């Protein structure tokens, strides 16, 4: 965002590559360590090779308040199998070494606090990671993270919601780096039959506050919904549907669902969001 060297942002670069191809970017969420560390790497690589521009690797956490039942079940299973937070760096490195995708880590804040914000950031950067998506960290509390992310050149993806006031929207957009995560509805993660009309308003408000890249997540599960969002946002985030596919059909199912989702990315009008809009 404003004030940062845009070229340094891996997430922004990945989104801009998609934009230059006249389409929105696809962001695929997968939990680290589910169903195993090896399979989560394989799933990330499969997603990246079948149309995902960015991969979002979730850290399994004991108290995931923004997640619905499918992701809760997957991350609880990963923890039960003995997943450790430091293994997320193996997953990130495993994917970045095999693909061109930008790899972000999605994490609740306490595991980062426990490791130390600087140490976590240093290791993430060392693994080739692009940055962090932080569902329970707002810019108001992000002093240490602002500092560490600058130091290691990492993206800061904060969330904005339908309930965000204009003041908070501005503050969050200003604090973000890479892209802004627009929560499509008031709720937790999980597939839904239709995309809320609130999503478009949130994206519009984020653009109005100066965000150049806004990606929409929560409730997106099929190519039709991807197409709908690709018409007004720079990126589309799919999580629960991919996690379910991975659980039901393994890595091959992730590959085929990603391929299918990516058919929705091309903007039918052919118009692209102008930088700085």
């Amino acid at each position: 965002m404003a004030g940062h060297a845009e070229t340094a942002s891996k997430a922004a670069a990945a989104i801009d590559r998609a934009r230059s191809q006249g389409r929105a970017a696809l962001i695929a969420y997968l939990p680290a360590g589910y169903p195993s560390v090896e399979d989560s790497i394989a799933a990330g690589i499969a997603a990246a090779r079948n149309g995902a521009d960015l991969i979002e690797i979730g850290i399994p956490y004991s108290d995931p308040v923004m997640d619905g039942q499918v992701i809760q079940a997957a991350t609880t299973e990963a923890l039960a199998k003995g997943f450790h937070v430091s293994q997320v760096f193996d997953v990130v490195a495993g994917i970045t070494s095999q693909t061109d995708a930008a790899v972000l880590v999605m994490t609740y804040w306490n595991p980062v606090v426990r490791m130390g914000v600087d140490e976590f950031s240093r290791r993430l950067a060392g693994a080739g990671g692009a940055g962090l998506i932080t569902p329970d960290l707002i810019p108001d509390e992000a002093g240490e993270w602002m500092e560490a992310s600058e130091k290691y050149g990492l993206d800061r993806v904060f969330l904005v919601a339908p309930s965000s006031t204009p003041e908070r929207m501005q503050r969050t957009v200003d604090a973000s780096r890479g892209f802004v995560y627009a929560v499509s509805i008031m709720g937790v993660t999980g597939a839904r039959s239709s995309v809320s009309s609130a999503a478009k308003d949130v994206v519009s408000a984020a653009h109005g506050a100066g965000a150049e890249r806004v990606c929409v997540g929560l409730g997106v599960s099929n190519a039709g919904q991807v197409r709908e969002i690709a018409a007004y946002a720079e990126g589309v985030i799919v999580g629960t549907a991919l996690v379910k596919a991975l659980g039901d059909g393994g890595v091959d199912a992730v590959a085929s669902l990603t391929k299918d989702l990516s058919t929705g990315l091309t903007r039918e009008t052919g118009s692209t969001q102008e930088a700085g809009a």
Partner: protein
Amino acid sequence: MAQAPSGNADNNTAEAFLQGGSLRHAPGPYFGNYGGRWMPESLIAALDELEETFNKAKDDPGFRAQIADLNKNYSGRPSLLTEAKRFSQHAGGARVFLKREDLNHTGSHKINNVLGQALLAKRMGKTRIIAETGAGQHGVASATAAALMGLECVVYMGAEDCRRQALNVARMELLGAKVIPVTSGSQTLKDAINDALRDWVANVSTTHYLLGTAAGAHPFPAMVRYFHEVIGEEARAQILEQEGRLPDAVCACIGGGSNAIGIFHGFLDDPSVKLFGFEAGGDGVETGRHAATITLGKPGVLHGARSYLMQDDDGQTIESHSISAGLDYPGVGPEHSYLSDIGRVSYEPITDSEAMDAFRLLCRTEGIIPALESSHALAGAIKVGQRFAAEDAASAGEKIIIVNLSGRGDKDVATAAEWFDLLDKNSAESEIGKEGEQL
């Protein structure tokens, strides 16, 4: 102050207190390095609305009159301050006074907070409240307030707790609440809070989350304390009236810490009054099966606040253990973390066994059956009194200790009967007791 500030406290504030400044009425969002709002953006607008509504209400004589009226004519306040003369003989001879929150309507201090928050919910035009509960005390109190004020009420409760506390589930349902068993995560109180937060995110336009303790995101810690400050204010005035002087020590139990912060608040600025918070030591802190968050936890963020937290090396929350469901929580309110760091309050663990001994002692010496939670404070008071005696036997009999008797033990009779092996092996009650049922 006998103790020096320690840890990573906000030393400016600690210094200010030591130089005669005030620790009372800390407004949040931060208490030294603790507190704040570690919450999804989706909920920040609701927290802002709550904070604004609360701040306006606090300054509104009409609101304060409503609270005073409910406290007097519904809850039965002021609660008594009862001297426990026979119990005192076991506390090194110190005179022990009990602040009788057990005599409030619904049987504990919880009513103070639920009435205040339910009024705020109505002020915000919300028609539905949600709450979490462990054993059911806060759930019952929330259902009570909802019934009184005509609000819809949904209570989240761990599935295992629902089974063990079947009668409290029935009690909430009698009061018109809907109880939802929580099957996510470890299926305990912390997961009930998680599910309540998920509900709140999805229904925030109609719903107020009536959090039951002085923890969580700002403004909850300062707001819940505000509604419980009446405990400390009454206790301070009562001991001055009855004895003409301040107590030497005040003891309270700590789970999230709402009853403790309520009574401590009245004495925070009285340096001569030693304050003690007693955490649940479970099977013993050396066993790992406990809920001694401040004693053994490390700072972290959970449920919206930075505070001491029981967590592993990965920052995953560790499950807590206590015979007392009301103390069985791996977190603690942020103001307590701060008061510990600056040395104003001493926090110590009390084992299940010590608490149960104190439970039986109060039953037999005073004819009062205390809640298992409050029994931790009683056990702590015995230790404090014995320490006074060890320091100076001659003056021990002149020492005054106030214990916040935060709740009554009717709900705990089956657990206690099982603990003390009072039940016929073949009785239905024995079967219930084995399941940990609290009647």
